[in-house]
């Protein structure tokens, strides 16, 4: 048999990257591939940026870069949430549905209940947190497998969000199922969350994304709680025996991911300006993609918040650049898939060659 079978054990979830180095040349080579591996995504990102900038100078225009960041902000925020659930060994499939229902919830609370931004935002965030709690309840108390619990929640929410309006989108003047007409409107201040740019350049949603990224990066990588979150995902029994409450840690993770998903929904609502039933369709897959690409970033091969953000930006740059080059929409998914496979082959394949 070959490489795959001559692997050293003990291997639990991950494979250790064994590198056998016999002499200087090999050592140097090993070092070079290690760098290439851990930087593969960055290298690709740089190469892409250069190609796009050469082909279309408008690409590196500051406004365009900001618009890339703005375009990825929601996916990056959701992806960061997924990353936290991946860290505790779970998986949150409900985030797309949470974001979509948050769009509806925000619109409903402003248009039907006539609440303003200061009431709507906490309300919607609380909604996301409650969904996270429910997920955690199913997973932690009833011991339902993560995928199954969050998938059920996904179906539940994608139906639930349509019921108050009988499946209609929510915009000013909505006629309610009871025949009356809603008289509220979007609070103009709420719209600023999605549409205002600080100093005319940095969109609020980008600032929110960066705040989330920094906060979660510090939480997951630099704090006790973060260590325990990962420990829960690595070996739940061992974590419990070390005196941590894995129940609370998992609950925390799902509440974080639910809340972030509803923050994503708030940003979408503020950008779109109405409760559109079709929004958020591809969010789940894109967020999952971002956090999985994050595995490859820095060669860490594990969930990490920084990687997730870079992953989201990576896809954003790719799609923006292709659009600038006037590539038809159907080639974009293909290129996205192909570049991903390439990045993966670099990140994961290189370490193997000399095992």
């Amino acid at each position, binding site marked *: *048999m*070959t490489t795959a*079978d*001559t*692997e*050293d*054990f*003990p*291997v*639990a*979830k*991950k*494979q*250790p*990257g*064994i*590198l*056998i*180095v*016999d002499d200087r040349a090999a050592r140097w080579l090993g070092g070079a591939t290690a760098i290439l591996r851990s930087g593969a995504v960055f290298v690709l990102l740089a190469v892409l940026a250069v190609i796009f900038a050469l082909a279309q100078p408008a690409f590196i225009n500051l406004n365009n870069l900001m618009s890339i960041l703005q375009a990825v902000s929601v996916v990056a925020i959701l992806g960061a949430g997924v990353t936290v659930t991946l860290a505790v060994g779970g998986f949150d499939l409900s985030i797309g549905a949470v974001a979509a229902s948050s769009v509806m919830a925000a619109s409903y609370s402003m248009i039907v209940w006539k609440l303003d931004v200061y009431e709507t935002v906490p309300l919607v965030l609380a909604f996301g947190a409650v969904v996270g709690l429910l997920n955690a309840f199913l997973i932690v108390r009833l011991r339902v497998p993560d995928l199954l619990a969050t998938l059920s929640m996904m179906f539940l929410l994608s139906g639930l969000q349509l019921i108050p309006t009988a499946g209609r989108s929510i915009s000013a003047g909505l006629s309610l199922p009871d025949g009356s007409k809603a008289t509220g409107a979007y609070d103009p201040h709420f719209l600023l969350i999605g549409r205002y740019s600080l100093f005319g350049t940095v969109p609020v949603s980008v600032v929110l994304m960066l705040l989330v990224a920094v906060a979660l990066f*510090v939480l997951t990588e*630099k*704090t*006790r*709680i*973060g*260590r*325990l979150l*990962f*420990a829960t*995902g*690595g*070996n739940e*029994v*061992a*974590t*419990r*025996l*070390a*005196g*941590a*409450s894995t129940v609370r840690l998992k609950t925390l993770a799902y509440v974080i991911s639910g809340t972030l998903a509803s923050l994503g929904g708030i940003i979408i609502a503020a950008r779109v300006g109405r409760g559109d039933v079709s929004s958020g369709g591809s969010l789940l897959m894109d967020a999952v993609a971002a956090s999985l690409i994050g595995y490859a970033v820095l060669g860490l*091969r*594990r969930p990490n918040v920084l990687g997730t953000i870079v992953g989201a930006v990576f896809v954003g740059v790719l799609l923006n650049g292709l659009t600038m080059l006037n590539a038809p929409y159907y080639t974009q998914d293909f290129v996205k898939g192909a570049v991903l496979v390439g990045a993966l082959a670099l990140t994961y394949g290189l370490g193997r060659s000399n095992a």
Partner: protein
Amino acid sequence: MPLLHVDNLSRSFEQTRALDAASLTVERGEIVALMGANGAGKSTLVKILSGVLSADGGTVTLKGNPFAPGSPAEAAAAGVVTVHQSTDLVGAPGLTVADALLLNRFADRGQPFFVSRRGIRRQAQAILDAVGFELPLDRDFGDIPAADRQLVAIARALANKADLLILDEPTASLSADESRRLFEVLLRLRRNGLAILYISHRTADLEAIADRALVMRGGAVVGAFARPIDFSQAIETMIGRKLQSARPGARQAQGAPIFEMRGARLLPSSELFDLSVHEGEVVAITGVLGAGKSRLLSAIFGTIPLLAGTMVLDGRPHRPKSAADAIAAGVAMAAEDRHRSSLMPPSWPGNSLAATISLPHLAKWYRHGFLFGDRERREAERAIERLHIKAPGPLASIWTLSGGNQQKVVLARWEAEPSRLLLLDEPFQGVDVGARHDIIQAIRRRTDRAALIATSDPEEAIEVADRIIVIDRHGIADAASGAVASVFEELTA
């Protein structure tokens, strides 16, 4: 022509030379004991012979032919069957014990394609009967204790057709009974011409069966001892110094007990019992496999409920509902089966030596919650020094350590902070005699707490404890608690 000839075999992991020109031969029909301190390279040698790892240099000949198996399947086909050191490597959660016993038959293309549950059960029972072990065939493999997993591994290996049988620490979590049954089978197999390479840190085991002993040090075979084997000489070769007499006499327990159990019941069907431990006392709990040692410690640590009775710690009622409660009350426990109970998977955060030690102490060491500063690295360096852990450094992955050194790290975790009651469940699994001696010294030196140590090896119990308690069918037999000597007689009779 010897059955197996290993010539100048080498293997490195980055900077570590795990095997450094090791040479040895094994003849048909002999049992060769392979000794060596933790990290000497024994398991690495085994992994190469069983097709798990490849060598960097040197040659192996088996029955006169060059032998370099590329996979475990190839090694098995060539007649080399192995029981690995880790009990996690036998079966899979989700499969039954019967499935695990037959796993290598499932992988054999010569076997019938279709299987039935009844057929599986029957064959598995036959495998167990041949060795004389008893196991719950329908239990999920993921739910059975480490000792049972080890029995599965042994039974499966013995059922195979082989020329060379390699056993890496097969009795680490077995008690005397099972060990004895294993030895009977091994001696029978030897008579049939099977060659056996037997690795163990239990000198008594080796005394019972070995024809020859080889000693490894620093990745090479540095000594060979024929019958009659001078084990004290072999151990001196192995650890590079003389081992002083085991234990400086038992101390008398004084004052009020630190910890007491009254009218305790572990299982609905078991007897009520009492138990008390005093400050400065080291108490060993021993008993056969499945007697309830682990259950007793788990009940004190709050991870399983005590069915009846009360516990008192430091004069206060002790009713932990979780490990966290117990730790907060001053109880620390190094559970058995380190892979499941203590270690993070490879390339997952927290799999370094330092992080393994610090996990329960993070709140104490980093009061503000941020992991700034190098407290855990310093603590790990201290532990490496104190327990002579053989590791590249405090930040090395725990998975690059040898089995015995991993065990030392787990002990170091619970030694890193003071506690009132230290619970150790099979703490010396795979730890070499020299290191065990050092650890015992370390445990006994601390007199500001009590220690309760579960072990299935009476020899170990005698070496470490001031007092030995025997547990049987989840109850503590009155007659057995008492003098060390009489217990030993009873157990080894």
